[in-house]
C-alpha cells in the first residue's frame, strides 16, 4: 500500500526511503503541496524554503541511487520556529524589529544535525513575539490557528511548530521552550513534544529569550519520531556555553522496552489544583494506564513558578532594553508592556529567585531517589479560543496569558526533561507532562512510547 504522506511519521518516511519505496523528492513535493493548501488557513509557516528543500531531496535520492547509505531521517521534511537561524533568512523571532536584520549566514546547528541525518528543511514557522507568549497570537504575522479547530489557539510560543505538525504539513518540527513553549502548544494541538534537559541541545545561533531557562527541542506525532530527532541532535557544541559536554546517549534502542521496573508517580498538591475536568481526565487516564497510584509532592512548586516568572520578566527585559528605548512602538503591545515592567524589577529580587532556584532544584532532585518519573498536567485546560482574555479556574475568572504555564514553569525552572504526551479528548486534545530526572530523556520517551502503544496517548487527526 502506498505511504499516506500526510499521516506518515518521520520513521515511516525514513524507512520507506531506505527501502527505495519512496523518493525524498516526492515526499518533499507532497509536503510543499500540503503547505500551499493548508497554510492559508493555519498560518503556521512564515517562510517556505522550497528551492533549498528540492535541492536537498534530490541529493538524497542521488545518494540512494549511488548505493550510499541513507541517514535515519532520510527524506523527512521538517520546519523550525523562526528564532532558529536559517541560512538566507533574517531571524525574525516573531517580531517586526528583527526582520530588518541581514539574512543569517549559517543554519542553526540542530538544523545541520537533522539534515546530516537526512531530514529536509522546508521552512520557518510562526511564533509568539520574542517567545514571550503562550497563546500563538501574533500581530505582525497573524495568529497561528489550531488544526483541530481554527477558531482556537495553537498555544505558544512555538505556535507554528505545533500547527505545522498537527496540521499534517510536516511530520517533525523544532521549537523552543523557556517556560512551556514546546509543551503548551503540544498540549493544545495534540502532539508529542520533548523539552530536553537544560543544556542538552545546543542553542547556538537561535534568538534567545531567557538565558537561564531557554531550551530547544522537537515536536512530532509519535514518541519514536521525538527519539529519532533527539538522538540525531545530541552532542556538545563549543558555540553554546550552556551546552553540556556529554556524549550522545541514544534513546531509540531502549524506546520499546516498556515501563516494567519504572517507578512512576503523579504530582499532587499544586498540580491537582485549578484543573478543568479535561485536564483531570487526561492525567487520570495516563496514570491508570501506567499503574501509577502513588502521589508525590513537588515541594514549593507554586513559589518555583513565581520565581520563574520574576527571572523571566527580568532577563527578558534585559535582553530587549535597548529596543524598548528606541523601538517600543514596534513591539507587540502585550509583549512590550510586560517587558517594560520586567525592566523595573529590582536586582535583589532576581538574585533571591536564583538562590531559591538552587534550593528547589536540590529538593526536587531528591524525589528521583524514590521515583523515575512524575506525571503532571501541561495546561489547566484545552486550547482557548483565539482572542480569549480570561479563563475560569476553581470557579474564579482569572487572566489567561499569565496562567497558561502554571504547571510547566515549575519544571523548566530547573531544567528537567519532559515529554508532553497528547490525550485525544474531544472536541480538543490536551497533554500530560512525563517528567524525568536530568539527562533521563530515555525514561520519559519510553513512557511516552508505551502510552502510545496502549492507545492512551495519540496525536489525533484533525478534520481539515
Amino acid at each position, binding site marked *: 500500500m502506498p505511504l499516506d504522506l500526510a499521516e506518515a511519521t518521520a520513521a515511516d518516511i525514513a524507512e520507506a526511503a531506505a527501502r527505495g519505496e519512496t523518493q525524498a523528492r516526492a515526499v518533499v513535493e507532497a509536503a510543499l503541496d500540503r503547505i500551499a493548501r493548508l497554510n492559508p488557513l493555519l498560518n503556521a509557516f512564515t517562510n517556505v524554503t522550497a528551492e533549498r528543500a528540492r535541492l536537498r531531496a534530490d541529493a538524497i535520492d542521488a545518494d540512494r541511487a549511488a548505493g550510499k547509505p541513507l541517514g535515519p531521517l532520510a527524506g523527512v521534511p521538517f520546519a523550525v520556529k523562526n528564532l532558529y537561524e536559517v541560512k538566507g533568512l533574517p531571524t525574525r523571532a516573531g517580531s517586526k524589529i528583527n526582520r530588518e536584520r541581514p539574512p543569517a549566514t549559517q543554519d542553526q546547528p540542530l538544523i545541520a544535525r537533522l539534515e546530516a541525518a537526512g531530514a529536509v528543511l522546508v521552512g520557518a514557522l510562526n511564533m509568539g513575539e520574542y517567545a514571550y507568549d503562550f497563546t500563538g497570537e501574533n500581530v505582525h504575522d497573524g495568529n497561528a490557528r489550531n488544526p483541530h479547530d481554527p477558531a482556537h489557539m495553537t498555544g505558544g510560543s512555538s505556535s507554528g511548530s505545533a500547527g505545522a505538525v498537527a496540521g499534517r504539513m510536516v511530520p517533525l518540527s523544532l521549537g523552543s521552550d523557556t517556560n512551556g513553549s514546546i509543551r503548551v502548544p503540544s498540549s493544545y494541538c495534540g502532539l508529542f513534544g520533548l523539552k530536553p534537559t537544560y543544556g542538552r541541545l545546543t542553542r547556538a545561533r537561535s534568538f534567545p529569550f531567557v538565558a537561564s531557562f531557554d531550551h530547544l527541542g522537537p515536536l512530532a506525532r509519535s514518541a519514536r519520531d521525538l527519539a529519532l530527532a533527539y538522538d540525531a541532535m545530541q552532542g556538545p557544541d563549543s558555540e553554546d556555553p550552556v551546552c553540556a559536554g556529554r556524549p550522545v546517549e541514544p534513546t531509540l534502542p531502549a524506546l520499546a522496552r516498556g515501563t516494567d521496573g519504572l517507578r512512576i508517580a503523579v504530582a499532587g498538591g499544586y498540580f491537582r489544583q485549578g484543573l478543568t475536568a479535561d485536564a483531570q481526565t487526561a492525567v487520570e487516564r495516563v496514570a491508570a494506564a501506567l499503574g501509577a497510584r502513588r502521589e508525590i509532592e513537588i515541594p514549593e512548586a507554586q513559589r518555583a513558578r*513565581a520565581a520563574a516568572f*520574576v527571572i523571566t*520578566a527580568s532577563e527578558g527585559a534585559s535582553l530587549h*532594553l535597548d529596543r524598548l528605548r528606541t523601538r517600543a512602538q514596534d513591539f507587540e503591545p*502585550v509583549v512590550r508592556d*510586560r517587558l517594560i*515592567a520586567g525592566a*523595573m524589577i529590582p536586582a535583589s529580587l532576581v538574585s533571591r529567585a536564583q*538562590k531559591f532556584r538552587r534550593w528547589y532544584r536540590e529538593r526536587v532532585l531528591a524525589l528521583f531517589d524514590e521515583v523515575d518519573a512524575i506525571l503532571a498536567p501541561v495546561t489547566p485546560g484545552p486550547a482557548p479560543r483565539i482572542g480569549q482574555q480570561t479563563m475560569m479556574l476553581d470557579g474564579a475568572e482569572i487572566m489567561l496569558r499569565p496562567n497558561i504555564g502554571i504547571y510547566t514553569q515549575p519544571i523548566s525552572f530547573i531544567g528537567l526533561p519532559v515529554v508532553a504526551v497528547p490525550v485525544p479528548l474531544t472536541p480538543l486534545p490536551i497533554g500530560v507532562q512525563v517528567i524525568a530526572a536530568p539527562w533521563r530523556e530515555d525514561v520519559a520517551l519510553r513512557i511516552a512510547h508505551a502510552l502510545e502503544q496502549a492507545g492512551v496517548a495519540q496525536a489525533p487527526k484533525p478534520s481539515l
Partner: protein
Amino acid sequence: MAPKDPLDDFITATADALALPIDPAWRPAVRTHLEITFRLGRQVEEFDLPDDAEPAPVFRA
C-alpha cells in the same frame, strides 16, 4: 487631591532612571504587570534562605 500612589511614583522614577520612554496609554498595563510581578516576587522574598545560599547559575573560570 488623590494621594500619590507609590507604585506609580516607582514607575515614573524607574522609567526616568533607565531612560525608558512610556506612552501614557501603556502605563495601566505596565502597572498591572508590575503589580503581578511584585506579588509573585513577595512569595520568593518570604522564603527563608540561609545567608550562604548559592544562586543557581555558578560561573566556573
